[in-house]
């Protein structure tokens, strides 16, 4: 049972990496990434970059045309209390989204920012 659950957890972003339980979303926030523009996107993996550059916004319509945005989901495992942050960097284009990167921070890299 545990083996199959481990396999299934690979395909579920919102499952706890430690106890394989489904995590709950405790916070959602949308941010603009003012220094990332269409045609000039540079991928970043370090949490420090996002802590420095993310600008909170209310809704997608507030993101200027051609500017990248970032959706943040904060997950918490109800079983073991493990916390993870998922950042999805995307380019809003009219009604669509062009996803560039999805990042997971599971070791508290974003705790100071939260």
């Amino acid at each position, binding site marked *: 049972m545990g083996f199959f659950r481990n396999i299934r957890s690979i395909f579920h972003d919102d499952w706890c990496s430690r106890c394989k339980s489904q995590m709950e979303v405790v916070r959602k926030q949308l941010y603009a990434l003012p220094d990332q523009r*269409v*045609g000039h996107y540079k991928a970043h993996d370090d949490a420090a970059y996002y802590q420095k550059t993310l600008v909170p916004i209310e809704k997608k319509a507030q993101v200027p045309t051609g500017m990248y945005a970032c959706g943040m989901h904060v997950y918490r495992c109800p079983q073991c209390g493990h916390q993870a942050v998922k950042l999805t960097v995307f380019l809003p*284009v009219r009604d*669509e989204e062009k996803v560039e990167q999805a990042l997971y921070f599971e070791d508290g890299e974003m705790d100071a920012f939260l």
Partner: protein
Amino acid sequence: MCDGPVRKFNFVYLLAYIFVPIAVCALCIGIAFGPFRGVGAGAAVLTVVPSLASIAWWVGGGRFLYSRAKKRAEAELKAQGVNANQIFYSRGWSVFVDVAGGQVGLVSFWNPFKIFLIPASRIQKTWVDDGVGGVAIFKGSNRVSFLLQVDNSNVRVDTFTSNQRFAPNSDHILTGISKADTWVEILQAAKQNAG
């Protein structure tokens, strides 16, 4: 620097681009089979070298002149005090915009000897063409561009082109649309500042 009507083509250049190499090749081949008849090496050189030079010209000559024109445009605009802080290089056109000053510079691939500098107020209309056509699974596009209408002629600047067809929500098309939308906003801002 030209502030007259924006023209995509310089027809003399276009005809020369196509026909001058053909004429040179024909002349050299004529010489090779005339005065040089029987002189093997000379005839071979007169046949092969102009042909290869023509192919090289058709493949890279236009691009070379266009890239020189873009660099010249940047320098000349700077010299004229135009702060071209927004620049878009496309295959057919290069656009230089001084948003605060309300001025637009244009260089065409097929008219590389003229740099057009016009007040943005002369832009009558700007819009995005996503090129999407077809129905159901055939719906798609291979070209996204933004257009500006100046002096009743349309300047089409491609933000994405491909020899393949992509779905309207594919990454390539979305990136092209985003760039085109951004440029339409830039041009509109320049137009507003031009008064």
